[in-house]
């Protein structure tokens, strides 16, 4: 019996050698392990054997059948498939990816966060009138911000906006109170360029107007936005500031994330980093926007988007941002 079983295995292996087509292999399979195969016949004869013989040959026959099946399957899997796979599966191509400007990415993050809080994103013109850029924002005629040194005046009597704050007025005029708007955009300052100074950069303005808005609301909203943008729980403090369009005005400082407020070179040993100027909207600004300051109060703030992008991506020279240099910009591919 053992002899015969061994022979069956050998015969099948012999027949498989040189077999290239799947159909041939399947024919061999049915011949050797199919219903009409010799091994099936031996197996069916088993029931007529004595108990001793059953004990002696039962598992041997079964194992041989399994062995035959394994050999066939392995042949199918390996030999036949291998013949078809003749490419280098270690090759590794890439689909090239474009890029968004880092400021666009940061602006999206900030506005997304503010949209979640119910803000609408509004826009406004880059070439602006003196009225919207200054007068309506309670910046009087002899204020230093109006100097030629800081402002690009144009030969048509207009100017390039020095801040996105003018959009506060546009939004109030268009939409009235209550109002929750933010407005990212390009602004212009007449500055000489160096690693830290650009004449063209981005800000995002935020403004909330409603009944009974308080300083504590301002603090809350800033904490929410900045925690979301910085992706960590942050501490803020208010410090007296001075801006014509808000009263009271504050410099909003963020606890230094590097030293946790203990003082280090990054925060000039103060433990705090100046991050956002803001304050309660000046009654004159509300009036300019057609909103009654007796009925409504509000707060506004401006975040330096370009500076935020520089902090986030550790950009050391501001000038690369407007250079259009693809070598630099293509790092900012979005997933």
């Amino acid at each position, binding site marked *: 019996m053992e002899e015969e079983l061994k022979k069956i295995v050998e015969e099948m292996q012999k027949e498989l050698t040189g077999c290239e087509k799947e159909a041939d292999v399947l024919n061999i399979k049915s011949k050797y392990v199919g219903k009409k195969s010799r091994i099936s016949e031996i197996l069916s004869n088993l029931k007529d054997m004595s108990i001793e013989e059953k004990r002696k040959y039962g598992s041997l026959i079964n194992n041989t059948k399994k062995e035959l099946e394994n050999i066939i399957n392995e042949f199918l899997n390996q030999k036949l498939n291998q013949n078809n796979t003749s490419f280098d599966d270690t090759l590794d191509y890439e689909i090239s*990816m*474009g*890029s968004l*400007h880092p400021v*666009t990415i940061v602006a999206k993050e900030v506005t997304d966060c503010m949209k979640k809080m119910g803000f*609408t*994103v*509004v*826009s406004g*013109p880059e*070439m602006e009138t003196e009225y919207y850029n200054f007068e309506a924002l309670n910046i009087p005629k002899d204020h*230093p911000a109006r100097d*030629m040194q800081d402002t690009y*005046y*144009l*030969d*048509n009597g*207009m100017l*390039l906006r020095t801040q996105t704050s003018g959009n506060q007025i546009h*939004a109030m005029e*268009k*939409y009235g109170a209550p109002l929750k708007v933010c407005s*990212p955009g*390009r602004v212009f300052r007449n500055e000489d360029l160096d690693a830290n100074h650009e004449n*063209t950069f981005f800000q995002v303005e935020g403004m*909330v107007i*409603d009944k*009974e*808005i*308080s*300083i*504590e*609301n301002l*603090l*809350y*909203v800033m*904490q929410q936005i900045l925690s979301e943008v910085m992706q960590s729980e942050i501490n*803020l403090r*208010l*410090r*007296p*500031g*001075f801006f014509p369009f808000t*009263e*009271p*005005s*504050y*410099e909003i400082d963020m606890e230094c994330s590097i030293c946790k407020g203990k003082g280090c070179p990054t925060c000039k040993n*103060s433990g705090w980093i100046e991050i956002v100027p803001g304050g*309660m909207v000046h009654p004159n600004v509300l009036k300019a926007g057609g909103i009654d300051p007796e009925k409504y*109060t509000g707060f506004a703030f401006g975040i330096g988007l370009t500076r935020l992008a520089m902090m986030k991506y550790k950009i050391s020279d501001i000038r690369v941002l*407007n*250079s*259009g240099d*693809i*070598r630099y*910009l*293509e790092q900012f*591919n*979005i997933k």
Partner: protein
Amino acid sequence: MLLSCNKLKSYIKNSNDIDWENIWKTFTIRTAEVESVKKVGNNLDNVVIAKIVKCEKHPDSDHMHILQVECGEENPVQVVCGAPNVRVGLKTAYIKVGGHIEGIEIKSRPLRGIISNGMCCSGKELGISDNHDGILELPFDAPVGMNIKEYLPIEDIIVEIDNKSLTNRPDLWGHYGIAREIAAITNHELLPLEISEIEDENKEKLKITIKEPNLCYRYSGLKVNNLTNNKTPLDMQIFLYYVGMRSISLFVDLTNYIMLELGQPMHAFDSRVVKEIEVGLANDGDTYTTLDGIERKLTKDMLMIKNGNNYFGIAGVMGGLDSEILSDTTSIFLESATFNAGNIRKTAVALGLRTEASARYEKSLDPNLTTYAIKRLMYLLKKENPNLEIASKLTDIYPNELTEQVIKLNKKTLKIYMGKELSENEIKEILEKLGFKVEINKDFYNVTVPTFRATKDIKIEQDLIEEIARMYGLENFSPKPLKLDLTVVEHENVYNQEYEVKELLATKFDMNEVNSYIWYDSEMLKKIGIDKSGIKLLGKSENNILRDDLSLSLMNIIENNLKNYKRFGIFEIGTTIENNSNRRKLSIILVDDEKNIENIYMNMKAIVKYLFKNLKNKNVTFVDNINERNYYEDTLGKKVIIDDEVIGEVNVLSKRVANKIGKKKAIVCTELDFDKYVDIEKNKILAKDISKYPTVELDYTIIMPDNKKYIELLEVLKAFKSNLIQSYNLLGTYENKYTIRYIIGSDHKTLDQKDLSNFKERFIEHIKNNGLSIIE
């Protein structure tokens, strides 16, 4: 601005209770930003007052002397000293053996063979002046043996405040104002300053005229005679040095001292040259030499102090060379005036001359300070010159007196802003500490504003709320969420649409977003020979023309990138200025070698089509565009049309221009009007049922005559009607052969051979009838 804590202490009662090193952290969040706090004079010890009792020439040196100095010990000590001003009887600062100066220990050591025990010090070595010409000279009555630190205010804490954070606080531009703030923060009492009332009965008025009362609010003058001592006391010299000023002479130093104390700039003229003072405007084109010896060009907007018919000083900025006090004078004319802040700032900026005085005037000083400042100066002057003589009336020209104003502060408004309620007493206490007067009423407070706060920063009730909030403590405010509001509001979605387009171009079409400038690069325009006459920036001769063509303004970015890339695509959404108004534009630019122009041109059209199909569900039509701008190719220009409206252009930069940017390069630019884009409404998708019956693809290859283009074939195809047509599109071209694929089918049945051959026959006939041939 630099502050001396010693000086601040002198204005506050029980000031030693204050932690002068750490108070500045609180000051930062109550008042203004502190940049640095620095201890001075603490690296010095064992320095005492000594008297030189014997002075002999060093035998081996041409400049050194061997001194015997008395320093409070039993016997005089021998010191070798190289200073030229050593002499018997001189009192000076002597550092003992074992003492330290600038952290270095002083030892007994031989100097050219003669033992020197300790050292006599110069002002510079003590860190109290820049003077290193000789050893410190102390007054004759200085007590020998006394520690120098007890005698002179050498130990101090010097604080630097960020000037910018004082912009709206003219009252904080002197030590006394800062002391008022510190006293309020720490609940201490501010001491009144000692002043000297001017006894000027029977004296004559000075001749002073203000020609421009809108620019000069007040001018006070006083003439003082019989001044014999022009030497500044050492403690004042040290103070001036510590806060960054040079000591010159008593008369000049005192005016600076008053400015540093009260914030009121003053000027002392040599009264021998003062005739008649007039404050008026300069003549255009005149020149005037200021104290620093520089000749300044004047304009008719600059306010001047005039003496007789001559200029005497630039008001609020700097005096003139000819008004300087000479060393032999015993009579001075004191000027204490207030000018218009804006005018002074403009003058200072125009002249490029920002002085300590102009910095203060720019902040809008309180005109009520002028005579007070004179009285304070006279008190200090009298201490050094007890026999001085008042030689004129305190002459005070003050056309429009600034009086105290009352602001009504509503309790309700205060509560809204603060988000909490403070007690009436708290409010009253806070405001009174800062110099306000408060009257409590039922629903409001009447708050009287002192004039030193009224010129600039306190005008309305919100200004008072700011005062209350900061003194209450900004750190005591806690974040509070806004009231729940569930209204859906989206006023506009311009920004979202911009982002959508940018994201598509970057992710789908492998393009890079750039940011650029709103003006043309002059050099680039010159290089490519294009003249642009748009809106101009004033006061600039380069890069001063605002762009009216976004793509063209990106040419220098393209030129730079060509150094590193053979082909690329960039885009920007930015503003152009056309017909005097803002236009929001999207520019897409593809760059490649000239031989690949067809490829990028077709890509560009496909991108534009995709963009509108994907984001607006709209089909684009391109029609020929005769370009007005000659730097674009005439024949390849296309208008981009959506719903019969022109929304932009696809252009190819002319060969001539492109070649200047990159040799043998093709540059294809699309410019879309984004304002119009935003307003295009998205086509709704209406779902169509799908036929149960199979469709059939039929490909036809049509041969076009050489002079005909695809657009003409499209017209022919459009004219072929059959209700079996599901869709058709261009499969490809080979030379002049265009292969079109039709997909045909029916909603009612499976097409049979007869339907197909019918369709085919009709189509071939249609094509032939239109004068085209078809490969059958």
